[in-house]
């Protein structure tokens, strides 16, 4: 040893255990600016400086740091070279989980930051799943994009309230902050079979090990059936899942949970659990699943559409006649296109994995701190599974390190809660990256067959889809994803003859679930590709075909059902789609990188347009309370911040309504104790539902403040104006805010009526027919988000969605082998887009004001993802003349298409 390690200048005199990595050691001693995103040096969230050199602390032996100066994001030197203020000024983060590692890497990066190659290389070891990296590039360049001023009304780019803490690693996430005394750890034993019955579990050896506190199995946990998916109505998803089951239905399913006094003890216990299995037939292919033996036999009360055929959900309906529509197109000299498209299994891969920490509070109430988008819905279902009254359970979040839909599930809270109830101790379970990639829900892989027909002028005469969705082992989100995926994708187009045949089927593969776009991206990949072929056959420009074929105000929204039979609450609160088409087409025509030269490079352009409802159907509730306390406005709202920016937007909405500065507004959210109800942060509702509740609460409070001040000043309330310091009458007299303490306002929103938002993506690509390489030369995205409450933040949501769309389009795929086992088990095998992979996207907003959303705003969080993959596919088609039909369009798949077409090598 050469003296103690110093961490951010302070000696840390503690001896690491053999094999302990620097990250775990630092976090154990309270240095929570060091994050855990993987365990393999792939993500960079744990980056620290050791004597000035950036390293992944997850791969750095802690003992080797003896005598070294370790610097975390919390301890970077202040001054002109400090990247942290630049990240705050450029809004260079969304969830912020990657940010501490990102700024630490940036602080040590040599070379001129404006050189894109050097920048890409410097950040090669840091992943961000949220931003799409443009705002990070701006941060490195020192370009400020947020408004620094005190205003902060709707329409300003107000910085996130947590910005300063996030760039210093000081904002707590789920597992940051002081651990409760006696914290135990949970480790799960997982199935080595895709489908098997457990014939015996022997836990005796595990229980006998030192430090093992309990072993949970299907024999000592509740057998109540539920769904991990959470919705406003718990009846939306089939009750087909147990906490721990005696049948395993996918490779990696949890079989037993071992609770230990520390992680090592729990891991040792997990290794000692003996499980005997009787293998059952694996069903790995959705195409054959309906003829396979039932996977959920006997679950007659579980709301499974057809358990005998392994069908979770089915939709077979139409309007008009497809045959007649096809005949009409042919008779008119138009065109008919049919084709089949397939999408891949994609992981949401938020940088913070799933996890939770449970304990009993002083009153004996069960408290669960979880990385979730839906604390209220988790509380309700947890209470149901545990057989306790809901009020005896509290679920809360810290800042959530990304979710993208994947945290609209109850994946860990049941086990940590049970472990706490059994042992009486606080228990935490933080999924490893490999667990996240192998056993948490992915996007539903789909096979989408499309028939579309049109008259020569582009009038659609038939539009039909046949969709097969792979639910995986459990039905969580499968009905919703299927219905939603087939809805707005079809309803976007006016056509007298429509038909949807869709089934979601069980297979013995990892469950699919909720992920940004909720099925639309998959179905739209098929429909938008087919429409591109249709435009080609008709000799129409693809933008022009959309202009002629899309719905317009006054039209009913028809996916496959007659609106007379199925009235709904969807309405054109605003309509910016034509403007989006114009904006994207004009932007695509200008600028862009030069095409590579050489005989094998081909250049082409492609686009796709999409629609999304701004709120999920059948109710989505939010409630907010705003109280004035000592000159500050305290806002309570149920929704959690997970990088979607609601904390910023809610602050802005409250400040706007109250004439206040954003720094006068304090949010308390993500806690079942904050308000009575909140459906949660999903379905793109953070702004339009929870934001409306905040707006209503703030407006109610503003009214009360005006009334009170008017009474004191003896004037009419209408003559009073709210400002940052108080309420001022027309004659200039003022009542200070401090004198109005205690006033409060409440607001709520039930999620209806709903509006529609639009997105158009367009790209120019170069395809190397010799190698299959696809380069994006120009990327433009036009969005109709209504009034944009925070332009920088909304732009970031669009760019992040586009980056995830590029990942889906070109690289990302969770792959299974022929035993149903995931082979992409670490991030180096599952390719998330990195800095160097994502082109800059020009983001354009249509100028609309929504009649239904708060301040005229619409949602814009899921939808930017949806049109990206078909736009890229259509551009590849345009460039090389080959039609991609399977995602991801990896280099070897494009190369094979080029070989089949006999293109130059």
């Amino acid at each position: 040893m050469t003296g103690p390690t110093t961490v951010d200048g302070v000696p840390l005199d503690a001896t690491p255990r053999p094999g302990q990595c620097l990250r775990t050691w630092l976090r154990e001693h309270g240095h929570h600016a060091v994050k855990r995103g993987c365990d393999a040096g792939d993500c960079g969230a744990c980056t620290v400086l050791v004597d000035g050199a950036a390293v992944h602390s997850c791969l750095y032996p802690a003992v080797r740091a003896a005598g070294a100066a370790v610097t975390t994001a919390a301890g970077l030197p202040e001054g002109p070279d400090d990247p942290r203020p630049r990240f705050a000024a450029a809004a260079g983060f969304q969830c912020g989980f990657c940010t501490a590692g990102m700024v630490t890497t940036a602080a040590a990066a040599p070379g001129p930051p404006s050189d894109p190659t050097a920048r890409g290389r410097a950040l090669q070891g840091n992943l961000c799943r949220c931003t799409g990296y443009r705002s990070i590039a701006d941060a490195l360049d020192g370009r400020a994009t947020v408004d620094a001023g005190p205003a902060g009304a709707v329409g300003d780019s107000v910085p996130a309230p947590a910005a300063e803490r996030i760039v210093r690693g000081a904002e707590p996430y789920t597992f940051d902050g002081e651990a409760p005394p006696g914290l135990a750890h949970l480790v799960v034993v997982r199935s080595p079979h895709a489908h098997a019955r457990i014939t015996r579990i022997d836990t005796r050896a595990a229980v006998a090990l030192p430090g093992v506190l309990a072993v949970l199995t299907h024999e000592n946990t509740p057998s109540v059936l539920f769904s991990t998916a959470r919705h406003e109505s718990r009846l939306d998803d089939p009750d087909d899942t147990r906490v721990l089951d005696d049948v395993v239905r996918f490779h990696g399913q949890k079989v037993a949970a071992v609770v230990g006094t520390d992680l090592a003890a729990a891991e040792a216990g997990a290794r000692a659990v003996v499980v005997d299995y009787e293998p059952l037939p694996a069903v790995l292919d959705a195409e054959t699943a309906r003829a396979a033996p039932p996977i959920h036999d006997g679950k007659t009360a579980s709301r499974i559409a057809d358990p005998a055929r392994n069908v979770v959900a089915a939709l077979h309906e139409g309007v008009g006649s497809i045959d007649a529509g096809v005949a009409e197109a042919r008779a008119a000299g138009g065109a008919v296109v049919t084709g089949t498209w397939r999408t891949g299994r994609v992981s949401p891969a938020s940088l913070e994995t799933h996890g939770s920490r449970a304990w009993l509070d002083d009153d004996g109430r069960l408290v669960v701190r979880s990385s979730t988008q839906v604390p209220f819905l988790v509380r309700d279902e947890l209470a149901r599974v545990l057989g306790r009254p809901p009020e005896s359970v509290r679920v809360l979040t810290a800042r959530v390190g990304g979710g993208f839909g994947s945290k609209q599930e109850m994946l860990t809270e049941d086990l940590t809660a049970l472990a706490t109830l059994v042992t009486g101790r606080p228990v935490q379970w933080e999924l490893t990256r490999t667990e996240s990639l192998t056993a948490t829900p992915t996007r539903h892989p789909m096979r989408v067959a499309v028939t579309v027909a049109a008259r020569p002028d582009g009038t659609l005469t038939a539009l039909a889809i046949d969709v097969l969705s792979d639910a995986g082992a459990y039905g969580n989100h499968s009905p919703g994803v299927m219905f939603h995926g087939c809805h707005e994708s079809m309803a976007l187009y006016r056509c007298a003859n429509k038909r949807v045949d869709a089934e979601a089927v069980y297979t013995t593969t990892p469950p699919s679930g909720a992920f940004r776009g909720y099925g639309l991206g998959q179905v739209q990949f098929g429909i938008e590709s087919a429409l591109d072929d249709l435009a080609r056959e008709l000799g129409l420009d693809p933008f022009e075909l959309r202009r002629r074929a899309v719905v317009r105000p006054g039209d009913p929204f028809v996916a496959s059902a007659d609106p007379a039979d199925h009235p709904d609450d969807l309405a054109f609160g605003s309509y910016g789609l034509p403007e989006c088409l114009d904006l994207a087409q004009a932007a695509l025509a200008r600028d862009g990188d030069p095409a590579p030269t050489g005989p094998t490079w081909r250049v082409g352009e492609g686009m796709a347009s999409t629609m999304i409802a701004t709120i999920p159907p059948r109710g989505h509730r939010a409630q907010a309370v705003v109280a004035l306390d000592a000159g500050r406005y305290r806002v309570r709202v149920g929704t959690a911040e997970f990088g979607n920016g609601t904390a910023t937007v809610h602050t802005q909405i409250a400040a706007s309504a109250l004439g206040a500065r954003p720094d006068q507004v304090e949010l308390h959210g993500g806690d079942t104790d904050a308000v009575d109800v909140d459906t949660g942060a999903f379905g793109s509702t953070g702004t339009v539902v929870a934001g409306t509740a905040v707006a209503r609460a703030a407006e109610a409070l503003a009214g009360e403040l005006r009334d009170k001040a008017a009474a004191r000043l003896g004037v009419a309330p209408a003559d009073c104006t709210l400002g940052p310091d108080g309420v001022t009458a027309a004659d200039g007299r003022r009542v200070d805010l401090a004198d109005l303490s205690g006033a409060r306002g409440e607001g709520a929103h039930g999620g209806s009526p709903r509006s529609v938002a639009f997105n158009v993506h367009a790209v120019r690509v170069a395809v190397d027919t010799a190698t299959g390489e696809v380069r994006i030369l120009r990327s433009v995205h036009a969005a109709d988000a209504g009034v944009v409450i925070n332009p920088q933040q909304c732009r970031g949501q669009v760019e992040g969605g586009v980056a995830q769309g590029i990942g889906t389009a070109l690289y990302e795929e969770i792959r299974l082998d022929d035993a149903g086992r995931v082979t992409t088990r670490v991030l180096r095998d599952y390719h998330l887009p990195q800095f160097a992979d994502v082109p800059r996207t020009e983001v354009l907003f249509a100028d609309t004001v929504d009649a239904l959303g708060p301040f005229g705003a619409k949602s814009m969080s899921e939808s930017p993802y949806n049109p990206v993959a078909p736009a890229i596919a259509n551009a590849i088609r345009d460039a090389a003349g080959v039609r991609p039909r399977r995602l991801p369009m990896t280099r070897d798949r494009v190369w094979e298409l080029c070989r089949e077409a006999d293109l130059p090598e």
Partner: protein
Amino acid sequence: MKPFTYARPSEASEAVAALAADPDARFLAGGTNLLDHLKLGVVEPSQLVDVNRVTSTAIEDLPDGGLRIGAGVPNSDLAADPRVRERYPAVAAAILAGASGQLRNMASTGGNLLQRTRCVYFADPTTPCTKRDLSQGCSAREGWARYHAILGTAADGCIATHPSDLAVALVAVDAQVQVLGPDGARTIPIGELHRLPGDDPTRDTVLAHGDLITAVDLPAPTPAVRNSTYRKVRDRASYAFALVSAAVALEVRDGTVADVRIALGGVAHKPWRATVAEAALRGRPATDDEFRAAIAAELDAAEPVRSPLGGNTFKLPLVTGTVVSTLRGLAGGTA
């Protein structure tokens, strides 16, 4: 992770002796590969012997104009060294083509050469893998074989590839590896360090237990080596392992190939020196047709994998295209 002990000797000979005395002990250098494998349960050593303090971190000039690179030199320092960049451009380019800044800061020169394959089956102890355990079969042959070998494989045997970019470049420049073992010091030409799988794929190299790489010597650069580069083809622009890579050095005089070195990565259990192609090219005109014919001759022996889940026959044209365009660039001075 299974418990183990940790030793940090101050002399190389102590480290070698510590390993020699314990068949389950392992050297720990940069740790970027080993710590990952410890967490995954791929290796379960009884003891880690840290060699960080016993291997040189210096890059020294050799009297003949070459360089001696201490085994402890971090990859980032090696790539940044002006002598390396000027005299051995393929070596610097190869390092920068791999990993991330954080990893290059940690990874050592010796450890880079000894990193294990990135085959997904090797990295997962729950799947059969003949490289981890000779008694098991190979999962990749019927599984995901995109990244796997097409050259030097044996029927039904291991088809893992060696993942190091640096090693490929070092093979092209004929580096010499200095090794200290229980029986003393010796020198191994880099081309002989790594093995083909043969009947024992568990062994990546000819090193015996306790052999410690102490340095890598680069011989004085020839004109071809000064005109060398490294080309890596991967799934995306950023951090990924090579589908195919090539370290190529070329000297052309009067339109004729005077000297050429071609080493391939991503195609075999070891960095693959394309001796057949080199012999075919020497003295021939530096034209695309000649380049193409030469690499075709090299690939005559290739046996791509046709796995039901994704084979790697695409690597044949990919190697050809990569090598031909790299040679073309070097011949035109534009690589």
